[in-house]
């Protein structure tokens, strides 16, 4: 009896230790694996140059640039909304408030929705509905303008008369070549060729039938907004925790001195929890920088000629790694680049997380002492 209990005790103590060692061991193994494989390929050139030769040589600068720009836009969108929601939950909501319960449930649900579903949402909502809507609006406004332009006096097809397409093109070129660039290009494909005759109604109908997606396709803005939804719960949870770390006495003192609740929040509670907002932002950036699934079809690109603006597709470290590792033509050549890209991505996210964990543990200690 006693002996069997000793054996049981041995396992009861041993299994948790072994499990812990295994988990920590795997983490160390992953990091070591990438450090050993990737450090030799990591160089200043790798960080500052563009990829060459179908991503088998050169660096990853556009991917770093794209990732940074992406998380900056994401933070601008997520942090204010997240902070305000956290202020509501921590400072305004009563414990029994139905709205607060709904908000909390929504935040938890948002945190649990698979990241690929955010990607689908980005595609259906931002790209097709919002972006497509903007495109449609602009297109219709432009077509109305075109209608007026071609129907008015100096136009060769004024007053519903017919003229060769060549002349209509010349007229548009003369009016504003840059503005009607796409329309002139489209007229090149007018059926019957340049000498076919058309009137204003035919021309406008022909040009209206085709829109160029401008906002209605993946770009860095839509991708960042999609990501900001995904990181919103991260911000809310972190900021709420920080707000709760502010001692209740401070609030009471402020209220007792005649300050309103908003003044108390704005001048006393928020300044005292700036580090918490910072933690939330850092955690969100760390999370957002590493997520690939939501940007797969909201704007990430494999290779780009120039650095992106708001309306362009962008390169991304994680997406770059995904493409390099699954679609590389020459595996041996791509391997060092894959490892080095991993180090950069992992280094970025882990550094952000480590900073956030350190700050957060300070907040928690403060929280506990209250």
């Amino acid at each position, binding site marked *: 009896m006693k002996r069997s209990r000793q054996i049981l*005790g041995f396992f009861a103590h041993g299994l948790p230790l072994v*499990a812990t060692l295994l988990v920590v061991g795997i983490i160390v193994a992953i990091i070591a694996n990438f450090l050993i494989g990737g450090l030799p390929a990591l160089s200043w050139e790798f960080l500052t140059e563009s990829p060459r030769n179908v991503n088998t040589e050169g660096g990853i600068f556009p991917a770093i640039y794209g990732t940074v720009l992406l998380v900056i836009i994401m933070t601008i969108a997520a942090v204010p909304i997240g902070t305000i929601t956290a202020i509501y939950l921590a400072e305004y909501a009563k414990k029994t408030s139905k709205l607060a319960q709904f908000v909390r449930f929504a935040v938890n649900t948002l945190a649990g*929705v698979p990241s690929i579903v955010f990607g689908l949402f980005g595609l*259906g909502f931002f790209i097709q509905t919002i972006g497509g809507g903007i495109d449609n609006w602009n297109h219709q406004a432009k077509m109305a303008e075109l209608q007026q332009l071609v129907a008015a006096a100096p136009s060769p097809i004024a007053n519903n008369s017919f003229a060769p397409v060549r002349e209509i093109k010349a007229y548009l070129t003369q009016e504003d070549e840059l503005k009607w660039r796409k329309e002139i290009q489209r007229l090149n494909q007018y059926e019957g060729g340049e000498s076919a005759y058309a009137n204003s109604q035919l021309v406008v109908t022909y040009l209206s039938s085709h829109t160029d997606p401008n906002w209605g396709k993946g770009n860095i803005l839509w991708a960042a907004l999609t990501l900001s939804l995904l990181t919103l719960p991260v911000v809310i949870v972190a900021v709420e925790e920080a707000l709760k770390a502010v001692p209740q006495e401070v609030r009471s003192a402020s209220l007792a001195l005649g300050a309103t609740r908003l003044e108390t929040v704005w001048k006393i509670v928020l300044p005292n929890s700036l580090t918490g907002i910072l933690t939330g932002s850092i955690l969100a950036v760390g999370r957002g920088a*590493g997520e690939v699934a939501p940007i797969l079809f909201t704007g990430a690109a494999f290779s780009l000629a120039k650095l992106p603006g708001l309306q362009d597709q962008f390169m991304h470290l994680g997406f770059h790694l995904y493409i390099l590792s699954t679609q590389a033509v020459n595996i041996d050549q791509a391997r060092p680049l894959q490892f080095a890209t991993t180090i950069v991505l992992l280094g970025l996210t882990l550094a952000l997380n480590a900073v956030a964990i350190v700050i957060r543990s300070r907040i928690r200690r403060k929280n506990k002492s209250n």
Partner: protein
Amino acid sequence: MSEQKQEKSEVKPGEFSTASLSLTTKERRFGERAIELGIYTVSSLSIIFIFLIFAFVLREASPIIGYTLSGEQTEKSAELTPEELTRAKEIVGEDYPILTHNSEITVSALIHDKWEPNSTYPRYGIWPIVLGTLKSTFVALFFAIPLSIFAALYTAFFAPLRLREFIKPVIELLAGFPSVVIGFFCLITIATFAQDLFGYEFRLNSVVGGFGLSLAVIPIIYTLSEDALRSVPGSLNEAALALGATKWQAAYQVMLPAATPGIFAAILLGLGRAFGETMIALMAMGNAPIPSWDVFDPARTFASTIGAEMGEVVFGSSHYQVLFFLGVVLFVFSFSINFLTEFYIKNKLIKKFRGNE
């Protein structure tokens, strides 16, 4: 605290704050009301986002649901010549409708064991994907549950204080690993290592992918279980020890059962993550839609199917609708899990297990 002292020292006795003088009380109150209303509105955004996500993913999948409800399904067979029809039947099989890429399809077209959305006569059977998701989720939990719960027990009860301060952040750091990095690690290192060890046929399969998923799940189950274990009142532990139990007996027979609801919630949330994780499944699982129960066969999941195929699909086609339908399944699943943990476990079970404190 230091900022506060500064603020106090700025306002000297006898000095008035001009800000509060410039507005009368009534005006200030009105302004505050407006701002507070703004706070309420912004806070409700999270709720609106959830609705929007569901609505817009559902909207793109709605033709499938609509045709299912109205019972219509168009088939291409009418447009085909008899020879083409026999050929098509040979390819698709007798029991499956002959579809085009723009067919109006119903849920019944999804209940089939072949996923061939890009062939001339496409088939959208999701059975291989269901199997792949089940297999990989099972493997993920098979690795993750014991590892993370034992690790949580160790950190909560057995580890020396200083070691605990080290272990917890390290395991939490794993949550910060981008899933694409874990996927890459499995694709390169684990896949080769495991194949050398077990000598099975396919390098990438649901064991390799499932192991990768477990790495994403471990920090979730670990953190939440550890919190659950530590939130069990210490008096229970002390009572057990006072009655002569050893340290491990108290941990396993008193503390662990008392923390069961919390650990259960942790496992459920881990399950949700494993179910919906995209990049690891996409990279490390071989991505072949094979209707097989064998865990050493390549597999694909709901999420990885969407990730792999959404990029090349024609907008509005039936393939596109099916992929969004898979998205609806993912959303509903994750929503249900969250609903269950939130309203059943947190509200009912925890109270039941703890008694009324």
